[in-house]
Each structure stands twice: as structure tokens, then as C-alpha cells.
């Protein structure tokens, strides 16, 4: 199971990102656990400056925007 963290201080884009990932994972039948990380210290730990950011199993894979569908698929399949 992939552990996915959506990094962001709670804006609308971060919520969208989490929902999108959840939805795409559901369609592809990939088992994921999506968690929203809002703690500033944790976000700093990933060295993210523009949110929303996405980390999979502890590695930052995306930041600065709501990833589009294609990008989410690539990330989930990787």
C-alpha cells in the first residue's frame, strides 16, 4: 500500500489534490492511504515552498499546483 501525503496549510487546492488522488487511485484499483499534512514543521521537512505538495512514501514527488490527471496516474503507477 502506498502512503500518500498531501502537503499544504489547508487551502482549497490542497483539498482538491487529495480528492483527485483518492479518485484516480480508486479507478486504477491502487491501494492508497491519503493523508493531509498541515503541520508547518512537517511541510518544512519536505522543503516545499509552494503548496500543494505531494509526497509518496516519504519522498516529495510534486509541488506547486494541483497535479493533473495524467501526472497523478504516472505518480501512482511509479
Amino acid at each position: 500500500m502506498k502512503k500518500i501525503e498531501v502537503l499544504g496549510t489547508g487551502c482549497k487546492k490542497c483539498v482538491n489534490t487529495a480528492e483527485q488522488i483518492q479518485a484516480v487511485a480508486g479507478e486504477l484499483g491502487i491501494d492508497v492511504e491519503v493523508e493531509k499534512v498541515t503541520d508547518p514543521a512537517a511541510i518544512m521537512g519536505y522543503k516545499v515552498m509552494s503548496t500543494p505538495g505531494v509526497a509518496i512514501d516519504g519522498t516529495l514527488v510534486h509541488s506547486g499546483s494541483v497535479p493533473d490527471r495524467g501526472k497523478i496516474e504516472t505518480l501512482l503507477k511509479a
Partner: protein
Amino acid sequence: MLEVFTWLADWLIYGLGGLDPESKLGTSLHFFVEDTTKIFALLVVMIYLIALARASLDLERVRHYIQQRHRLAGYGLGAGFGAITPFCSCSSIPLFLGFTSAGIPLGITMAFLFTSPIINEVAVIMLWSLLGWEFTLVYIAIGMVVGIGGGMILDLLKGERWLKDFAAKAYQQATEAPQDDEPTPEAPRLTLKDRHLFARDELKEIVGRIWKWVIIGVGLGAALHGFVPDGWFADNLGSGQWWNVPGAVLAGLPLYSNATAVIPVMESLILKGLPVGTTLAFCMSTVAASFPEFIMLKQVMQWRLLATIFVILLANFMIVGWLINLLSPWLFSEILT
């Protein structure tokens, strides 16, 4: 070129609508149609072009660039990049921590964050089209001064003492072990198509976010324009007594808005005889000192630092207001006559 929009409004309101150009409703609606069409047309064109140009500017590179410069230049750069970097206020905290943990002084980071809401492409486009280039330049200069001045004072007071512990620690670590040898982050290689896609998304994003503010702002401006008699402010609020400026700053505080909505209102206030400095003080206070933003910064700052920043900002707005009122006979001979 921009007269097109005046003609459009003439035709629509006085021609098709048959309203009397002398009536209050007629003037208000004319103002509304002229300004909204003009602003939207300019915004769409300019946001797209600006986004094309800055597609390759990202925060990592901005940070690296600021880090490499002398501290004094840092304040100017912080404020300057705050003005031109595309940046959503929901990223304030990660940006703050990203800068701080890279050892950039608090004052420089705050210069970025102070200037960011005041100067951005939307504000500049609107000012330019509504109030002309002289006013726009003064506005930009003031925004920079507020940011640079605020940042410098904050560092003079050693504001970093009052950061939250984890942020203070990150800053200390970075200053003790400077990462000077870090390579410059590479500029992303972008084709024209990438830039176009970026610009298209930016355009959609920005216009989607601000269109209602434009309408609200212009609506308010139009109502003021049509229904408040000329010279009302001078007759009722006094023109240029010293307490006008602090009054305007305080009045702007509870109004949380962005530059997009305030600028059309500013236009009307100035045309109705409110002194320019007073108007600007009001505008800055509405735009840059917003409570939601402050509550957000609470996550990385102690109350003491927040309060200090708040007082510095308000003092800056007042000084700017007084100064511009003093200078306005020389600065704005054109709009004021």
C-alpha cells in the same frame, strides 16, 4: 486606444439603454460598464503575456538568488520578487519557512510577504488603466517602500527572537552552516508550448479567482461615482487634516479585501476629492494588513512578533499617507485638476 470602452459604454447606456448622462443612475452604470469591460479586456491580454514571460520563475530560484546577494540588496530584492513572483497567499507559511530555513533574514522574507499582496500584475494593470501611469508608478514605489522599510525595521528590532521555536531553530542552523556551495537551481527548459500552457492555466486561475472582486470593486466605485456628490469628502471629512490619514488606516483595517476590489473604489474616492495620500493609506490598510493572513502567520510566530509587524505596517501606511498628501500637488497635477 482605451477610448473604445468609453464609446462602448456611451452606446450601451445612453444609446441603447436611453439613460440620461446627467442622471445618477446613468453615470453610475456608464462608469460600471466602461470600467469592467476595460479591466477585463486588459487583464486577459496582460495576464497571459506576463505569464508567458515568467513561466520559468520559481520560488527555488528566487530564493537562491536572494541568498547570494548582500543583505542590504536583499531587502530590495525581497520586495521586488514579492511583487513579480506568482504566489498564492495560501503558500505564505511554506514560503516563509523555506526562506527562513535557508538562512534568509526575517526582514527580507517579510519584505517579500508585505509587498506581495500590494503589488501584483492585476493591481498594476488596473491602476494603469484607471488612474494613469504616474499614479501607478507612485503606487509601486510606495508598495516597495512599505515592504523594504517594514523588513528593515523588523531586523533592527531583532524580530527573529520571537519566531516559534522550530522556525527559530531552522534559521539558526542555516546561519551557522551556510550552504553557499549549493548549485544554482537550473532554470527549467521551456518550449514555447510549455509557456503557452502555463500562461493559459495562469489566466484561467487568476481570472477565475478575481472576476467577482473586479465586479464588486467596480460596482462600489460606480455607486460612489454616481451617488456621492463631487467634493463630498472635502466638505464632510475635511481635506487634509492630519487625523484623516490615521482615520483612513483604521477604517481600512476591518475591511479585508484584495487590491483588485479596492482599486476601482480608490479611483472614485480620488475623483470625489479625497486626498491621494489618505486614499492610498486606506487602500494599503485594506489590502496588506488582513487578519486572516496574520492568523496564518501565527503558526510560525509568537504573538509578540505578530503584534510588532502589525504596528510597523500601520505606522508605515500612515507615514506614506502623510508624505503623499504633502507631495501630491507636485506629483499628481494631472489627475487632480
